[in-house]
């Protein structure tokens, strides 16, 4: 039995915890405003908001209900389009109507939820971010022009306001007034929470679900009747800290949490921007670092970044612990150096040294909300113009997320020059074994990796390079 609030209604249900929230909403609660568009988190028609109690305040985030197991909303507030509707249109809804932001209407509730969620999750409002809040929503009719106009129009209602609160949103009719009571109601509800379903300690022989953003794409049907253990709320597995000169990230930390971490922003000022290329906001709100690593996809973006940071994995089975370099973790396609009962407790890497540089490159058919054709990261330290440390990764060019060992060996102790870079790119392309698939031909991926190696240096050291010689 789990308990949660769906819009303004308290739900207690014995439904299987593995069914998707989408199916629960549509089939059991008959709320049909949330649509099924793709069941893989790639269209956003099923977008909902999840409100979670943190320090007695409710923090909301958007999520794809098609990838979210019901069991993961225990003690939370779930908001669908029906929970936003009031007697009159909200300013977001009205702007979409007036600006031609809806045509067939199928994707529209998802857009309304995403954009409303933006106002609910940001204190300072700006139109560019408001538009970006819909980066997980696909519309096939409007060309997004009317949707963008509507986003700009609805943000204009907060011009001059520095911080907006839930009260402001209720006053301006963005939200119905029951939202004001949600914190109190969730506090009561969480007292009912059954800790054995998602709490401390590690389970035996249960299927672990973290963000579910890949697991539920691959096999949602077979997860329904599994005995699931939800680790997304296990505090021991979350958080970003500095220990012994290393940055340590808990295995269940989400990509959004990584993006917004002050520690990571301090040491990797471009990371937030780099991670905009990772999925969409609702995906990043759910996807975790541990999931990205164990999924072992050769094109995982976080994995790619972590390889270039020469990260160490901290594995545990609840009793014993073990550490392993990420670059040694992958044995073959989706084959890991991991025992069945081990989980990734954390990932750590050394704080970047002085005079170090980091760059992430990703090219996909569509820049945003797409999987890389090839991605690559590079970490590099210079001393007196000499490369004294370097790690480079390459994704999408081998059965595993690839650490380019020979390219590293070549670059060590060299000066940065056109010739060195060109040779490094050449060596990198000899370390790989790409296949032709929907993300590109092997020929393309090979060429693209060469270009991305060049791009690392051109971006980081434009003054040292004669571009004309390289391209």
């Amino acid at each position, binding site marked *: 039995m789990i308990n949660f609030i769906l819009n303004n209604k308290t739900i207690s249900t014995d439904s299987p915890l593995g069914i998707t929230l989408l199916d629960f909403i549509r089939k059991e609660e008959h709320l049909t405003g949330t649509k099924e568009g793709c069941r893989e988190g790639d269209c956003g028609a099923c977008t909902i908001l999840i409100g979670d109690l943190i320090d007695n305040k409710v923090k909301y985030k958007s999520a794809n209900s098609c990838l979210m197991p019901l069991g993961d909303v225990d003690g939370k507030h779930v908001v669908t389009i029906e929970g936003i509707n009031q007697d009159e249109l909200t300013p977001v809804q009205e702007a979409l109507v*007036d600006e031609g932001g*809806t*045509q*067939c209407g199928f994707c529209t509730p998802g857009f309304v939820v995403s954009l409303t969620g933006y106002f609910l999750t940001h204190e300072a409002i700006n139109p560019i971010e408001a538009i*970006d809040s819909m980066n997980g929503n696909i519309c096939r009719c409007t060309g997004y022009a009317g949707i963008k106009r509507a986003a700009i129009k609805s943000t204009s209602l907060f011009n001059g306001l520095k911080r907006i609160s839930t009260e402001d949103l209720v006053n301006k009719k963005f939200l119905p007034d029951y939202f004001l009571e949600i914190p109190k109601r969730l506090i009561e509800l969480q007292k009912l929470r059954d800790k054995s379903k998602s709490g401390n300690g590690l389970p035996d022989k249960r299927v672990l679900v973290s963000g579910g953003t890949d697991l539920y794409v691959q096999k949602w049907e077979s997860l329904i009747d599994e005995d699931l253990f939800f680790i997304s709320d296990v505090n021991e597995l979350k958080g970003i800290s500095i220990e012994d000169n290393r940055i340590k990230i808990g295995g269940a930390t989400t990509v959004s949490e990584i993006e917004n971490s002050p520690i990571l922003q301090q040491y990797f000022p471009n990371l937030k921007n780099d991670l905009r290329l990772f999925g969409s906001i609702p995906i990043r709100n759910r996807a975790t670092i541990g999931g990205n690593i164990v999924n072992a996809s050769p094109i995982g973006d976080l994995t790619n970044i972590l390889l270039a940071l020469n990260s160490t994995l901290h594995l545990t089975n609840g009793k014993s612990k073990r550490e392993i370099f990420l670059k040694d973790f992958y044995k073959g396609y989706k084959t890991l150096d991991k025992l069945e009962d081990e989980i990734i407790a954390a990932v750590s890497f050394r704080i970047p040294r002085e005079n170090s540089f980091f760059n992430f490159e990703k090219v996909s058919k569509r820049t945003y909300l797409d999987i890389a054709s090839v991605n690559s990261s590079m970490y590099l330290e210079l001393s007196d113009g000499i490369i004294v440390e370097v790690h480079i990764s390459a994704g999408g060019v081998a059965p595993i997320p690839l650490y380019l060992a020979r390219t590293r060996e070549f670059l060590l102790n060299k000066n940065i020059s056109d010739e060195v870079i060109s040779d490094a790119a050449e060596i990198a392309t000899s370390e790989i074994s790409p296949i032709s698939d929907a993300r590109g031909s*092997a020929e393309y991926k090979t060429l*693209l990796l060469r270009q991305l190696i060049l791009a690392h240096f051109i971006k980081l050291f434009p003054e040292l390079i004669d571009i004309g010689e390289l391209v």
Partner: protein
Amino acid sequence: MKNFDAIKHVRGESQFVDDILVPQGLLYGYVFYSTIAHGKIKKLDYSNALKIDGVIDVITAKDIPGENQIGGIIQDENLFAEETVHFVGHPIALVVAENQLQAHAGARAIECGFEKLPAIFDPREAFEKGEVIVPPRIFSLGDVNKAWKECDYIVEGKVESGGQEHLYLEVQGSFAYPTEGNGIKIISATQNPTAVQRTSARVLGIPMHKVEVDVVRLGGGFGGKEDQATAWAVMTALAAKKLNRPIKLILPRQEDIRLTGKRHSYSSDFKIGLKSSGKIISYEVTFYQNGGAAADLSPAILERTLFHTTNSYYIPNVRATGISCRTNLPSNTAFRGFGGPQAMFVMESAIYKAAQVMGVDPSFIQKKNLLKEGDEFPYGQKTKNCRAVRCYEEVESRYRISEIKKSIDEFNQTNRLYKKGVALMPVCFGISFTTTFLNQASALVHVYTDGSVSISTAAVEMGQGVNMKLHHIAAKMFSIDPKRVKIDTTNTSRVANTSPTAASKGADLNGYATIDACEIILKRLKKVAADELKKEDPSKIEIKNEIIFYDGNKTELIWQKLINAAYLKRVSLSAQAHHATPNIYFDREKSKGEPFAYHVYGTAIVEATLDCLRGTYTIDSVKVVHDFGESLFPIIDKGQAEGGIVQGIGWMTCEEVMHDKEGKLLTDALSTYKVPDIHFAPKDIQINFLEDVPNPYGPFKSKAIGEPPFMYGIGAFFAIMNAMRSFRPKMEIELKAPLTPERVLLSLYSEIPELTLQNK
């Protein structure tokens, strides 16, 4: 006036097939289909499927009481394969179960064995082997053979354009239930309710009057539900009939993409001849259309390709050959533009290549050849109210094209790794079904005693805003509060023998029919009003904002009282009207006639920025001057233009339909088939309505809008190509769409010998 449909949409209250409350005892279907492209079915054993918990039945061709035939134009397509499968995704059976999961499990348990036969996927190969769907068609004007001698330049080339997945956000779906007296009711997401009705009747072996098809709305169609919604609806009807239970079938997204056809890919050869002045003298082109396994709408689509061979230009000597080729892919089908975009892409490619050879800007050739009043198309029709030149010149001057070009040149000179490009794209698109008899529609209007009005027509709402346009027309005709009007569902029992909602003609045909039906009722109401007011002349009665005027003077009589009076006088408050587009015809033997009621014109400026290091690009802006006539509902028309443009850009750039060597679709999910997202769409889209252009052939002087703007997207291809050539001036031009980042990068770096490609 707010768009009434939009209000429901933003509240999530609009009902799509899977949202409608279902009758008791609903069962679910799952389609079992071929995994090979061509072969004989050697074994089909579903005994294990029937053992799965919840599985009720497996329906196959053997269960069909009528004909196993769903072909429209040509009777060459079965509902379920019997002995032979013709493409990966060819339906073989429908598994019916208590829920969707069980139905899926049932399908997985079916054992099916095939004996493979040779398969063809390439249209040219199909043509060589004689696999054509209909005999080749030829449109011609003047004499190309003579004309070559007059030309200063003759340029030849090959052009490829790819398929395109519709990716309507609502997948294909239907549910059906048995009704009294051997009847069936089908709730379908179709653009063509009558096709569903007719085909269900044929497959079930019952008369059409026993089949009622109802369509509330579609979550996008774009042509993908014109012919290809039928199979799923018929499957639910067949299963409902056999099992005497309601059946729902909603294709999961992956199956929807795998099992349904796409925009036709084309492979074409052109030869173009010009004078040094830029005047095109002669144009010869052969289109090889990849039709897929069955005819579907391919012959009609091919015909529209031929109609739009010369896009927005007058060319005195033309010979265009169209060949519809049969391949082992799902039947390709209607998609916004209906063969027109493929033709225009070849025309623009020919101009582009000719411009390169002549050392001029393509716009130089475009401008020299734009259609003028009275010019003849290759199919014999002459332009009327031609606005090709006006749109082109207006967009050039409004946005100062020479300054755009100058600033791009400056940018390109100062940036090594980023280059910009610009292209102009004129469009001329003919409005009417080119199959003349389809140009008819009817409307049924009821006024109820409380003064409310219900309108039923043949039009299906799928996001194009036809409901709101009809709503607007009815409210305007009666001059009443729009809130009194409701556009009812599209239903074959209320409005019979409907044409599909397609060819951009929904608002035109059904708008006129609605005007006529309202007019009939108005005439009766005026007589009643004159009687009530004890006046002589009903023609002096006028309704303005629900108040009845006589001879220009306000009276005491208001709408609601008038309606009540009419009812008490036993005057009919209902009317049905039928509209057929006048004065159009087309002789298919001669390929000449006046097939179109009118043409739509416009021109776009498209700008792109290329990242020359990574091969990626952005489409920065699209600026358009378009002839909308007098728009019925400007925000709807603007939205149609914006949406069409972005879809057209998608077709030219990131949307790539890919198959493996066995004919299996590789891009069968949103994770592999990429349509434009909010960031890919141009940041700046500006739509300008050409002013003072009433259209005498459209309701309230309006023009059709659905398809024409799609083709502005073609400009994106040439804008990127121009940016590429700025980086690599000597680059060989490959006229192959979509121009994906892969194609861009491989073209830019085709000559790097040191690159290690041993894994190719």
